[in-house]
């Protein structure tokens, strides 16, 4: 009786093992037949490469592109340790990262694929929707904490920031803060969408986010008199605009080159626009 049961267990486990082996064999042959490209990095650049990869794969059956977020730092770290072919970043590679890459025999090569503008979002009911860079800095460092001080309603300013290691924060820090620290009691949110949502439901709020994530539930403030729009961001007149980068190990070759060329093509740049970013159409730098 007991032996019979045991035989049953063995049979089941053998069948189980056999099925695992089968699945493994199938998946191996699958990846061998397909050409795989891995893209990892900034969540800001993610929607651009995501849609680009989908269209590219439709055009080129047999190409397998896997796109992952994780953040600019993660993307570049993955490029350095060889676990991704392409790293996306919403900031320029840091000196330390370049040094570590060179030490590991990886030579990061930079391509700009789009422009992103950082919008300052305020609640639609807020009458004060034109700010200077200096005012924004004072708001974020805590020198100004009521809208009344800069000519708005008597309402406490709810400052919304991003975690200090996000690419959007780093761009904001470089473009606005000039080395000053964000007031420690600022709300810190984990993504562009959350900034959008929090501003939309908080009358006294101000938050910064990628232009592509602006919703019609919030209002984008004019900065130094310049409206936040596609034209002003592409031309660089808008003070808070920044390029979005792609990094490869050396000049892109093979599948990576074809994919990046596709992103920079007229069609690729149209996809960039559709994602709320601004196309550059200048080619590689």
């Amino acid at each position, binding site marked *: 009786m007991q032996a019979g049961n045991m035989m049953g267990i063995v049979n089941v486990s053998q069948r189980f093992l056999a099925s695992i082996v089968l699945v493994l064999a199938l998946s191996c042959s699958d990846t061998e037949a397909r050409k795989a490209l891995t893209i990892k990095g900034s969540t800001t650049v993610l929607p651009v490469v995501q849609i680009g990869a989908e269209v590219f794969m439709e055009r080129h059956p047999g190409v397998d592109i896997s796109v992952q977020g994780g953040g600019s730092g993660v993307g570049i*770290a993955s490029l350095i340790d060889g676990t991704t072919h392409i790293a996306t970043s919403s900031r320029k590679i*840091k000196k330390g990262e370049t040094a570590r890459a060179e030490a590991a025999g990886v030579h990061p090569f930079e391509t700009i694929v789009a422009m992103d503008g950082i919008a300052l979002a305020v609640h639609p009911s807020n009458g004060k929707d034109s700010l200077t860079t200096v005012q924004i800095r004072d708001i974020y460092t805590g020198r100004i904490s009521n809208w009344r001080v800069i000519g708005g309603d008597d309402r406490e300013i709810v400052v919304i920031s991003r975690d*200090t*290691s996000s690419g959007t924060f780093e761009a904001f820090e470089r473009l606005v803060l000039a080395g000053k620290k964000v007031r420690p*009691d600022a*709300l*810190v949110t984990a993504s562009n969408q959350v900034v959008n949502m929090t501003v939309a*439901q908080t009358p006294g709020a101000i938050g910064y986010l990628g232009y592509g994530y602006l919703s019609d539930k919030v209002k984008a403030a004019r900065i130094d008199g310049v409206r936040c729009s596609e034209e002003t961001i592409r031309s660089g007149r808008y003070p808070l605009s920044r390029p979005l980068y792609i990094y490869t190990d050396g000049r892109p070759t093979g599948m990576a080159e074809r994919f990046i060329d596709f992103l920079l093509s007229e069609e690729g740049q149209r996809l960039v626009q559709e994602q709320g970013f601004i196309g550059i159409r200048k080619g590689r730098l």
Partner: protein
Amino acid sequence: MRHFKETLYRWVFTILAFASLLFLVGIILTLFRESYPLLAGHNLHDIVFGRFWYPTYDPPEFGMFPLIIASFVVTFGAMAVSVPIGVGTALFLNELASESQRAVLKPVIEILAGIPSIVYGFFGMIIVAPFIQNLLDIPTGLNAFTASLVLGIMATPTVASLAEDAVSFVPRSYREASLALGANRWQTLIRVVVPAAGSGISTAIILGIGRAVGETMTVLMVAGGAAAIPASLFDPVRPMTATIAAEMGEAVMGSAHYHALFAVGLILFLITLVINIFAEIISRRFRLKLGLGR
């Protein structure tokens, strides 16, 4: 052949059983190894009691006190919600509820326990935070109070089901003796059942604390995320778990920031370890008291 199989199975299961031990040792070693570079380069007092968390500035500041305080505030706030509801539920289920009420309530509590924490977070962010904000007319609803409320609801099933076990372990003879002496149901409940199940209920509360202190997604979404020591319950805070979750993805590997996040993880681990040890000691005492233990 048969002997061989039995030996084989014994080994397989022994290895499986010891796997968790291996994972635990691995995690502890990793936490210590990865936080060591930070702890070696800085004064421990400055890290634990430092008031400013600016990990990516130059020079960086790694004061974790606001994060630690935030975890404590939110956890105890959550307990203020989940202990009365959880223990009350347990007593009601055991002592007062009819069969049909039990048949509804118990599965409902289990479903509540099974809701993913991100759903609680979303609910807190979209519904509870704006509601609190408008109700109290405060600048933002994303604060320690809202986080405590949502976490408290989340921890309630843990407290309720463990407390319910504890109450159901109280021998029937205790209740019968009490009633036979002329005590009414209320007196029996408060003077006999609750004290007898006291250490079990304490264990339930402590494990509820453990649940709340380690919860990440909800506090990340609802607590507001300000790394400042809160002046009131209605200020935004940034618990330790939320800090790790928000920053780890972008921290440069091997940087001081990276090691600092591991140090936060280490502190969090030590806190939960202490909580678990307390729970174990109390529940052991409880088993002995009722003559159920070894």
